[in-house]
Structures are given as structure tokens and as C-alpha cells.
């Protein structure tokens, strides 16, 4: 039991909690108002410390004051972005409709390319730094965060999967053209 108590003390000391260091407790909703007796215009430092510990945003009901509709829209966009699956649209030139793939499922380029080739019944070929997918009728490209269309395979997989917003499999002369540059 002694041990437990010691552990407890230690735990408290290293306890992770929301709020700036120096703030004693997590403020509850009703504690957000300051008791008038504690307010003192003169002692700046002390007051600074106390007042700097913000009520954690998620705990303050109705703050910041925005309508539910707007909050939900922002939240929906955020959760969409953070969602467990990283689904991106894949279009192929000439195909009647687009598909979606979950990039989180794949660990490397070969895996992704194999899946794409399966999905669209095409042969993309092998990537080479010098020539891209030269020789193949298809070239996989993706749109990155800046809105530019990039060739799949140039950057490390992790960098690619986090910056890829959508995929497009180029076909025909456009695709071959890359190899001629």
C-alpha cells in the first residue's frame, strides 16, 4: 500500500493535464467566473499567471460563440480530414466513372500500382527515376496539396500518401509525353 501511495504521488507529479503549467486544476464550467475577492488590479504577476490559464476550449459551453451549424460544418471537414481511411478519388482517362482507393491500406508504391492496375485493368509498368513510366501507355499522376499534378513515385511513400489529394491515370500520348522530356 505504501508503494501504491508513493506511486500515486509520483503519478500526480507527472500527470498530464490540459492547461498551462502553474494552473492547479482543470476549470469546470462554473469555475470560469473569477471570485471577486481574488481580483486585484495591482499584483500583475500573480493575476497574470492565474488569468493566463485558459479554460480549455472544449470545456467551455458555448465558446467560442458560433452557431451550431457552422461548428458542425467545420467539425465535419476536420473529421473528414482526420478520418481513419485516406480515401482519394482515382480517375482514368476515358473511363466512365471514378473510383476511390484508401491510401492507408498500402505501404508502398508497388502495392498501390498493383491495386490500380487491377482496378482499371491496365498495365502501368515500372517506375524509373530517369524515365518515369516510359514505355507504358499509362502514367499514374496525383494532385498534391498545392494543386499541382505530379508523377507518382518521385517522393518517398510517406510524403506521397500524406500529400496526395487525388489520383489520375493518364493515358495515351499525354502519358508517353512525360518520358520524352
Amino acid at each position: 500500500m505504501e508503494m501504491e501511495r508513493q506511486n500515486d504521488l509520483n503519478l500526480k507529479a507527472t500527470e498530464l493535464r490540459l492547461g498551462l503549467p502553474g494552473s492547479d486544476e482543470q476549470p469546470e464550467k462554473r469555475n470560469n467566473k473569477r471570485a471577486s475577492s481574488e481580483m486585484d488590479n495591482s499584483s500583475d504577476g500573480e493575476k497574470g499567471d492565474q488569468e493566463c490559464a485558459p479554460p480549455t476550449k472544449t470545456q467551455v459551453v458555448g465558446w467560442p460563440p458560433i452557431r451550431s451549424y457552422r461548428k458542425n460544418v467545420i467539425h465535419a471537414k476536420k473529421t473528414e480530414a482526420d478520418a481513419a481511411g485516406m480515401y482519394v478519388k482515382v480517375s482514368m482517362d476515358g473511363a466512365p466513372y471514378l473510383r476511390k482507393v484508401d491510401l492507408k491500406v498500402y505501404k508502398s508504391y508497388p502495392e498501390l500500382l498493383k491495386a490500380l492496375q487491377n482496378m482499371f485493368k491496365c498495365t502501368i509498368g515500372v517506375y524509373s527515376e530517369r524515365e518515369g513510366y516510359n514505355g507504358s501507355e499509362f502514367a499514374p499522376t496525383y494532385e498534391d496539396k498545392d494543386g499541382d499534378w505530379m508523377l507518382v513515385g518521385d517522393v518517398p511513400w510517406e510524403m506521397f500518401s500524406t500529400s496526395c489529394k487525388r489520383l489520375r491515370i493518364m493515358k495515351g500520348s499525354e502519358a508517353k509525353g512525360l518520358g520524352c522530356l
Partner: protein
Amino acid sequence: MCLAYMMNYFPEEVLEHVFDFLASHRDRNAVSLVCQSWYRVERFSREKVFIGNCYAIIPERVIARFPRVRSLTLKGKPHFADFNLVPSDWGGFVLPWIEAMARSGVNLEELRLKRMVVSDESLELLARSFPNLRSLVLVSCEGFTTDGLAAIASNCSVTPLGELAIGDADAMVGLILVLAMITPKVALTLFLMELDLQENEVEDCRGQWLSCFPDSCTSLVSLNFACLKGEVNLAALERLVARNHNLRSLRLNHAVPLDALQKILMQAPQLVDLGTGSYVHDPDSDTYNKLKSAVQKCTSIRSLSGFLEDVAPRCLPAIYPICLNLTSLNLSYASLIHSSELIKLIHHCSQLQRLWILDCIGDKGLGVVASTCKELQELRVFPSDIYGVGSAVVTEEGLVAISAGCPKLNSILYFCQQMTNAALITVAKNCPNFIRFRLCTLNPTIPDPVTMQPLDEGFGAIVQSCKGLKRLSLSGLLTDQVFLYIGMYAEQLEMLSVAFAGNSDKGMLYVLNGCKKLKKLEIRDSPFGNVALLADVGKYETMRSLWMSSCEVTLGACKTLAKKMPRLNVEVINENDLIDASSDDRQKVEKMYLYRTLVGPREDAPEFVWTL
């Protein structure tokens, strides 16, 4: 000989004609106080009635005084209901109003409701009872379903329904579905002019409602379904736009892709107000080129919004030609546009008068706004990250830049990471014309980060400089001092919102004693108590309402106030610990809402609301 004396010799028809020129209800209220005969003439000629608090009066008395009323505007719940501080069944029911007007044979043409509970039964009754109903506007309302809307539609048969606008309504839709259902069976013409759904929480609905608009519907002037989450029938939408040549305002939802937008714009070059749907496409495609040329033909667009969900930055240049003529731009839902793209866009918008934007534009972006938008009158900067830790996206710098660059600025809503006194003082000097000034720091009690002082001096400068200030919302670390300034200088102030501010009752007293024109005061989480509440009880009859939550007022003080002022309703809202006759008077009241009224306690208050 005074003018009034002379005017008494004029027949009443002349007086009435003169009063016709009085548009504002305040002016009309004023003339009705001059003398008996003016009162009489005015009341028989008033057609538009505005009731700022639906519980201040009962419908029967309104109708008795204004028998010729054709347009009624009603407001229900307190403003803080928008931020979930008011329990949803608090009240604000429209049914008694509709019942009373139906009984009295009022010729209602227009009904505008804000923050009210609208049941299906109310809508059904509304539809049945008023053959000339043209306009129904619901903002921030709740309580109805598609059945109620169906009733409106099916009964608006013989009536030309001019405008149907639903904003922030919790319920849904088929609004159009509804309206559409009428015609095929009953061979009626629907003169729908406006259908405006603003910021609704809408259930996912299938997109067939658009196809339900009959072919004979050619009178649409305004169609806004931006908030709908479901898919839409694009072909039906295109046909609808094609046959409604009077369409001036069109706001699409996210399910309308860019290629549909392009086709729509080809059919509606006369649009004045456009809300895009999702805005993503391959910028090298044919479709995109067609969009660019369609946009160039839309020379009347003055107001732009949308860019919901997906946005392809490289497609934004297509709208640059529109930007040159824009007076109103709402990008506050376009969280996927990078600040660099926003800045490029803003460079083209030199005529903007109103801008709603997200804080991800950054201080630098606001600097660009300041140097480009010299005509800017209203700016709203909304937070884009309310759940995260929050990187400093906009600070006092952005606000200062705007104030320096935009001399016509008179209305601002600004969510920011931090604010300094120096900045506010500069803003006050640059912009003495503010009518509305609402500042919201994401941390509600943050001090000036440079001096660690409260923001009293900054807000003090604002109220001292802006002599026409009517609405003020405070935030940041604030002591009683700021209220001293407000009481001293804010002579025109009508609405004040206070949160987490002040030290003692003195703060609230400064405001109550100083602000002679105060109409609405709403306070949360501030240490104001009984002394402040009871110091000048007569003041509350000069105001519309007072809201106090998580403050220091006790049940006993509320009882005292209620006893002294029979023409106030003092409502105590305690959801957690129900307050009743046996409660201790020293118990603090969680939420108190008081308002002046001519008709005593309301009969529809729920269990957790006790009118003292």
C-alpha cells in the same frame, strides 16, 4: 402655431399618406405617441408589425391595435440560444400567433420568424388560413418536419407564394419537394419567388425534390439550398434554371459539381448572387474552359459565396472576372482554400463592401484585404480551428491593418487568437464609424500578451471614439474598468454581450446607469450579483431583455425583483437542480432571463422555467 396643431386640420387620409413614408417601426411608434388622433391614424395604417420579443405581448392585442397588419416579424428565444445556452424546449411558439390571426381574419402576406419553435401544426394552419401569403422566412427556427412544409405547399394552391425562406431550421426539407407536390394534381400555378434555406441542419435527402418543381414554375427569383447535405438531381436543376429567367439569386450545395455549374451559368447569365457548390475539376479540361467563358458572360454577379467541401485552387482563376464587380463575398465555409490562393483572389476584389472569411487567411491576408478593398464596410473573420490547440492565425495585426486601410468600415466580427490594447486604440483612431464591434478572443480571458494587462483601455478607446456604436461584444481579460468606460461613452449602445468579464457589481452598475439606449444586455460567467441586479429596477422596463447566466444572482434577489416590477417577467431556468417554492433563497440561479411585458407570466413555460 406649431405644425402638429396645423396638421390636425388635415383629413386623416392625408396624415395616413404622410405616415406611409415612415418605413421604420421606431418612427411609427414615435408618431403614435404624439396625440390621440395620430395614434388612431397610425394604428389603422400600419401594415408591417415588428415584435422583438414574442412574449412581450399577446397576439390578440397586436391584432386589436393593428387590424390591417399584413406583415409580421416575430423573435422568440434569447440570442444566447444560438450558442446552446438555452434549453431547447424553452419556448417561443408561433402557433398561438397563427391561431389568433386566423381567427381574426388577418390578411397575412408575410411572416418572418427568428429563433422560434414552428410546429407542423402551425405550418398547416398557416397554409390553410392565409390565401395571400407570399413570404415565409424562418431563421434559426426549429420544430417542423417535411409534413408541415407539405401543408404549406399543398394549400398554397390559390395563393401566389412569393417567398419561402428557411434559415437555420432544424428540420427538413422536402421544402421544395413539398412546394412541388402541389401543382401536378391540382393544376395550380405556383408563383414561388424565393426559397432561401440558410444554415439549416438538414437531414440527408434524396435529390428528387428539384424535379418536383412543375414546368409551369417560371417565377423563381431566388433559390438557395446551400446547406442541404444530400445529392441533387442535376438535370432537373439545369432545367429549372433554364426556365426561370427571373432568377437573380442561386446558391448551390456541395453536391453540384463544377461541370453542372458551368451549364447552369450558361443558362443564367443574369444572376446577381451566386453560391457555388463544390469547385473542383481538372483545370486543363474542356469543361473548365467552358466555365471560364460562361463566367465572363455573368456580368451582373455582385455577390459570391460557396466553395463548399472540395476546391481545386487552380480552378479559382475562372472566377476572377466576377471578382472585379463583387460587393459581397462569403468564403467563410471554404476552409479548403489556402491563404495564398485567398490572397490571389482578394487582389481582384477591389469593390468589396462585405467580406466574410476564415481566419486562415492570416494577418498577411488581411493586409492584402486592407490594401485592396477600399470600399469595405463589413468584415467577419470566423475561426477555422475551434477544437485544436490553434496556431496563431489572426491576431491584432490583421485588425489594425484593416482599420488603417478601410476607412468605410462600420461593422466587424473578429475571432482572433489575441488582442492588444495598443491595437484597439489604433483601430479606434482609424475607424470612428463603427456601428457594430464584436471581438471574440478564442481564449475568453486572455490579457494583452505584450503588457499582460486587461483589455479595458482598448475597448475604452473603441467606445470613446465610435460615437455611433450600437452593438458591442467584449472578450479577453476585462475588469470593472471597461464597464466604467462603456457607461461613460457608449451613448448609442443598444446591445451589449459580456462573457467572463468584470470583478464586481460595480461593473454591471456602470452599464445600467450609463447606457441610456440599452435594449439588450446579455451576460455570462461574470461576477455580477444581487446588488447590481436590484440597484435600478426601473431600468429594465426601458430595455427589451436581460440575460444573466453563471453569475452571482440568487433566487431571493430574483424574487425581490419580480415582486417590485409586475411588468417584468423574471424567468429562472434551472435544468440541473429544479428550483421550486422550497428552494433556499440564497441559492444561486444558473440562468435568469428577464424581459418587459404587458401581459404577465407566459403560460407555456416548461417545467424547468419558473417565472417568479
